[in-house]
């Protein structure tokens, strides 16, 4: 079989973050930068802030510090989520200011439970009109979110909660490695990365490493997202800091604790964004500014998996 020349202008998916965000993010669109505690692509969020996008609908199960920063920077008009917290630390102060005091601007919210959000992605990803789940009974959540409804099962009449499909205009997903076509492999907390990728209309994959197609093909079970549905591939080492990429670097918990203190103050938050987002050109500059000491502190010891043998069948 004829191999395509990987990385040639025929496909041209490999872009810088600046190019990818410039090309695929427009004011007013819905964007899901997913990743459950892990693989949260701060590099992409910061570039969206730098490019001054406005009125985005931000979608994430756990908005985390990234959406706290993006909301503080004024890029969002609406938030779709299931858990608003600084994981293991406390509340998200910027998001609380937005919801409680409309600072820096009003923020519309639409909330589900975790499984409700995954179910929405599943419906969106698989072309279904809704997805049933055993949740919400007896909760006040359906009362404040008309998107949560019930249907009667045609098989016995049981009443079951349903949620509507969610199809973000764009998903941005971080991973350990991808090839130039966007065939993406992920290990660790895979979260809902696959579901979001298939649910979204466009997909940007951001990877710690760009590898040859042969590396991907050597371990096909680990491929979560096929290049077929990927529009752009960005090579961005440490792109998920201060969250983490399993086996590459740890969560920078000192930063999560620091953000808890700093973000209580609106001015300090703005000053931080000025220094660490607007004040750097790109993620490479951010990583340089972080310094070698931080990277060393976040470096895990090795814990390699036992090898598997797929066998060769001629």
């Amino acid at each position, binding site marked *: 079989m004829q191999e395509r020349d990987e990385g040639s202008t025929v496909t041209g998916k490999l872009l810088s973050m600046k190019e990818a965000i410039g090309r695929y993010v427009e004011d007013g669109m819905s964007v899901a930068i997913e990743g459950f505690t892990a693989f949260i692509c701060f590099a992409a969020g910061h570039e969206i802030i730098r490019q001054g996008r406005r009125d985005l609908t931000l979608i994430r199960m756990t908005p985390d510090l990234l959406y706290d920063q993006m909301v503080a920077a004024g890029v969002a008009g609406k938030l779709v989520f299931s858990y608003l917290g600084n994981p293991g630390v406390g509340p998200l102060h910027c998001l609380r200011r937005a919801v409680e005091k409309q600072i820096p601007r009003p923020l519309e919210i639409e909330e589900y439970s975790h499984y409700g959000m*995954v179910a929405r992605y599943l419906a969106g990803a698989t072309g279904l009109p809704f997805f049933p789940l055993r949740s919400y009974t007896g909760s006040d959540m359906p009362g404040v979110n008309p998107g949560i409804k019930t249907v009667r099962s045609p098989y016995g009449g049981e009443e079951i909660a349903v949620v509507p499909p969610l199809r973000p205009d764009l998903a941005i997903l971080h991973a350990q490695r991808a090839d130039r076509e966007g065939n993406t492999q992920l290990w660790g*907390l895979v979260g809902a990365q696959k579901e979001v990728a298939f649910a979204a209309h466009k997909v940007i994959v951001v990877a710690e490493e760009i590898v040859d197609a042969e590396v991907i093909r050597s371990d096909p079970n680990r491929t979560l997202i096929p290049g077929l549905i990927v529009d752009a591939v960005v090579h961005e080492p440490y792109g998920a800091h201060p969250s983490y990429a399993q086996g590459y670097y740890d969560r920078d918990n000192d930063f999560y604790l620091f953000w808890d203190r700093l973000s209580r103050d609106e001015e300090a938050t703005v000053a931080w964004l000025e220094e660490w987002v607007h004040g750097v050109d790109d993620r490479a500059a951010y990583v340089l500014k972080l310094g070698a000491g931080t990277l060393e502190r976040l470096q895990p010891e090795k814990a390699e998996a036992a090898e598997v043998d797929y066998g060769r069948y001629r």
Partner: protein
Amino acid sequence: MNEDSPATPSEMMIVSAARALAGVRTVFVGVGLSNIACNLARLTVATDLELIYESGVYGARPSRLPLSIGDPTLVSGATAVIPIGDLFGFYLQRGIIETALVGGAQIDRYGNLNTTVIGDYHSPKVRLPGSGGACEIAINCGRLLILMRLSRRSFVERVDFVTSPGHLGGKGERERLGMPGKGPDVVVTDMATFDFDTPEHEMRLVSLHPGVAVDEVRERIGWDLRVADSLGRTPEPSAEEIRLIREELDPGGIYRRESAEAKGAPK
């Protein structure tokens, strides 16, 4: 902290919660005290305990105290790491998780929990984190073990928002609504332990921690509290339980500090 110093209220909570997991096989774990309690149970009264985290981890063997439910230490060495949809679908809804440790900013006498807002939903006084997986966990998990510090602002006559259903209005309402899980079973606090073993499924004081008086508990509860006829005393933690907590599970004392209030609780 000196190993010989008496158990703190947080340590009483951890030990009481761990003991309530005796013989349990599968548990949904949260962070902080919940995590320490589950790990303590695995080392003491529930040696076959599989730690399950909503981030998609089954059978975790954390080699450090996880900083969140998505800590990478939960992944390395786990039995399985799966998509979140599989965790909620195959594990939770399928009915194979016996117990979940949960909490909230507010709880009422039927164990209904609020983690969403204080005040009106549309113009909240305090915006709390929301459900996360708590709503479906409360509905599907075999039983709930609730872990909360006792205070009048948390134990209220009426919660501002039902995020996760407990026994709802009591008197078998869960069963009538067809919920698979049996709902709140035990409430472990820093001062006392409660159950719901009444015909109405109303919370009932069953055990006082060492040195605590009934009136001290009553004044921290926003309704007329029921007290079990057989009201008992929580046994003191053993030297081994204290040693495991202080030396192995939380050597830095990060989560045992008395100031480590339930996250997001109203100020």
